[in-house]
């Protein structure tokens, strides 16, 4: 399988700030790829380099097999972009804006446009200066999603959307993925990425700190297990002897622990031998995965490791 986006060792500095510091990012054709990181981690800078708006200082960025800085126009025919903070021409209505953006790309499918306008419940007669942030976001989403493209670059596309529209957005992205389109989805809404993404890259200070499928990443993070057992003391001793078991606590009839992904098999075998009456296991959420990468910053903020 080929890569729709292949970024290797990308560096971009603004004055003294090193926004990208040897970033690697690989997005396979046809996947929805979550792109995570807090504000200032370099997500938008990466996307702007991929769009050919910024020129990288070092490293390589390949987009749909081409160089985004040298042939933006040909590449842009095959992609669409949704910024996180959409600014529009105040004097144009939403409908005029969508059609203008469509015309500049050589035409939109009118049926798809109308269907999207309807699903996002956008009043296209309103002038952009009167739109709320969420409505401006919808204009950009309709214009991008109605285009017949292979790749969607989305930089926090749902900021400002209400939860209902967030659900519509998820549905629409799933349909795009089902059509075989590739999506790079940068977002703060981890639940949204968890629901949509096949693979995820987490970046920190301009570098990728972990990348892989959600299952891969979950494997690196602990699963919380609470089990009601017949033989609690025996289980305690056996579990304490296992590698990869943390925060072991017991009360009258329950054990509670956090297990590394690699230790789960052994933990479950140990529990099963002690007469399981009930078991609840919380797999790590993407939030747990994300916060693990930022554990030290949480500590600095006085929030402690999760």
């Amino acid at each position: 399988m080929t890569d729709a986006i292949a970024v290797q060792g990308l560096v971009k500095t603004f004055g003294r700030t090193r926004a990208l510091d040897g970033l690697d990012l690989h997005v396979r054709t046809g996947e929805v790829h979550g792109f995570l990181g807090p504000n200032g981690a370099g997500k938008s800078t990466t996307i702007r380099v991929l769009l050919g708006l910024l020129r990288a200082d070092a490293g390589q960025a390949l987009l749909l097999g081409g160089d985004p800085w040298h042939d933006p126009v040909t590449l842009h025919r095959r992609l669409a972009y949704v910024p996180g903070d959409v600014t529009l021409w105040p004097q144009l209505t939403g409908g005029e804006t969508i059609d203008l953006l469509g015309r500049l790309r050589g035409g939109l499918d009118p049926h798809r446009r109308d269907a999207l306008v309807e699903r996002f419940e956008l009043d296209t007669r309103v002038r952009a200066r009167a739109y709320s942030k969420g409505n401006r976001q919808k204009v950009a989403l309709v214009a991008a999603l109605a285009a017949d493209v292979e790749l969607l670059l989305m930089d926090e596309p749902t900021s400002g959307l209400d939860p209902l529209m967030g659900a519509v957005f998820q549905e629409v992205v799933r349909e795009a993925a089902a059509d075989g389109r590739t999506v790079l989805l940068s977002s703060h809404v981890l639940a949204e990425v968890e629901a949509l993404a096949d693979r995820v890259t987490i970046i920190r200070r301009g570098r990728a700190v972990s990348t892989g499928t959600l299952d891969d990443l979950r494997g690196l993070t602990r699963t919380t297990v609470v089990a009601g057992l017949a033989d609690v003391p025996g289980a305690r001793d056996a579990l304490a002897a296992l590698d990869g078991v943390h925060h072991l606590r017991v009360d009258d009839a329950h054990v509670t622990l956090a297990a590394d992904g690699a230790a789960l098999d052994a933990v479950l075998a140990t529990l099963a031998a002690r007469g399981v009456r009930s078991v609840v296991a919380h797999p790590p959420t993407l939030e747990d995965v994300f916060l693990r990468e930022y554990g030290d910053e949480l500590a600095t903020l006085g929030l402690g490791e999760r």
Partner: protein
Amino acid sequence: MTTTTVRRTRAARPDPRRATPHGPLAGTGRLLRLALRTDRWTTGIWAVAVAGLTQVSVVALAELYADPGEREARAALIASPAATALAGPGFGLDDYTFGAMTANELALWLMVPVGIMGVLAVSRHLRAPEEDGRLEIVRSQPVGRPAPVVAGLLAAAGGVLVVGVALLAALLTTDLDPAGSVLMVASVVAVALVLASATAVAAQLTTHARTSSAIGMALLGLAFVLRAVGDVQGPRSTSVWTWLSPFGWSQATAPYTLDRWWPLAVGVAAVALNVGVAAVLVRRRDLGTGLLPERLGPARGRVGGLVGLTWRRQRTSVLAWGAGVVGTGALIGLLASAVVDFVAEGAELSAILGDVDDAVAAVFGLYTVFLAVVAAAYVGTAVGAARAEERSGRAAGLLALPVSRVRWLGAQVALAAVAASVMMLLAGAVMGAGAAVTLDDASQVGRLLGAAAVTLPGVLVVLGVATAVLGLAPRAAGAVWLYVAYVGTVGMFAALLPDGADALSPFTYLPALPAEPMDWPAVAAVSAVAAVLVTAGLAGVRQRDLDG
């Protein structure tokens, strides 16, 4: 000198932290301090530029017209209707002292820029914060409802006063009578305050900073035309038209000759009225809206491509500037016969200016350059709008489409070039038609159309400079205005400035038709410079990072 003034203003105010925040004006002090702080560079640059240029011009005028005989000849020339339209009401022409000359010929050109500064400052403080949502945060603080408006107006007034103080300091270094200088500066400040307060009213009617500054500029233009008509019809501020214009009241003070303060009372009353109306309007409307309601528009688009988009963005601006340029051209054309009569009557004047045809030609040559400078200022705003597109992030949205940067900027530059050309040619034609009617000489249409056409390469050089700055040094975009101001100054006052000071203005090299013969190589060379600059700008924008 300006910084000390700002500091003094701050120190003079009571510490806002000690004031208890309640009442309708709560928080005004803090907001004012913030506004003055935000403005300190802008105000400083205006103050230094206005004061510096004034100082240079006054010293040059003094040297050039040291001899009373020369001043008498100058008085005869400046009394012509065409000169009056661009100068003043002509107090003290019979004894044209150096002070009378300064008040009559320079004061108006101080009032215009300081007035523009006042208009822009009010729009910046009153409308822009509301438009981008800053005001919402401010209003959620313990701040009275009118406080942001009061603070914005005071900040604009403060900026105008700082420029006034700088201007006064510059004038006091010259030989001019200090009392007259104080009055002249007060007159300049008065015009700016009237226009600023009128813009404050406009800011309550519209939703957008751009619209309110456009209304303010239109009022400025209207005031200018009213006083021009008035001064031509009735010398020494005797026409009704003069008294309808803030420029008229302020010039009626006649600094250095009559030294009368009472005309400024009209200005003070106008300021009070405007502030009162603005205050009433503020109480009547909701945050984020103007009194003029938003209407729904078409649900489907007919905006055709990049040029269509640029036209939609720019058409109000193009029409406003175009109306200004063409309207002024028409006015000048209608004054042609007055120039002829004037020259024909004064025998000694013909000795200076040559025969009647030459006099008309010289006057029209100067006016055409004036119109071209206005067209160049429009071109500056058009390229400035491209920079605003970039910074707002709207350009990024377009450039993420299959649209090259050269096409993106090229469409905007091309539209500016076409619009400026159309307004200049129309102005030339209208000016020529006016002259043809009043002089009963049909050949004037062709002559003046040609005169306007030959300035176009100069306008395009300004377009080229603006484009090159945008492409190669986008953060220096403000410098384009310094260049426009320079071109305007040397275009109007080249004779007063030291030799070679006009070397960087394209109009220096273009033939001033119809007074001078046509010079094709010069026109071709200036056009080539414009083409090189535009090309450099387009190439530059392809090579650099995009902001926004």
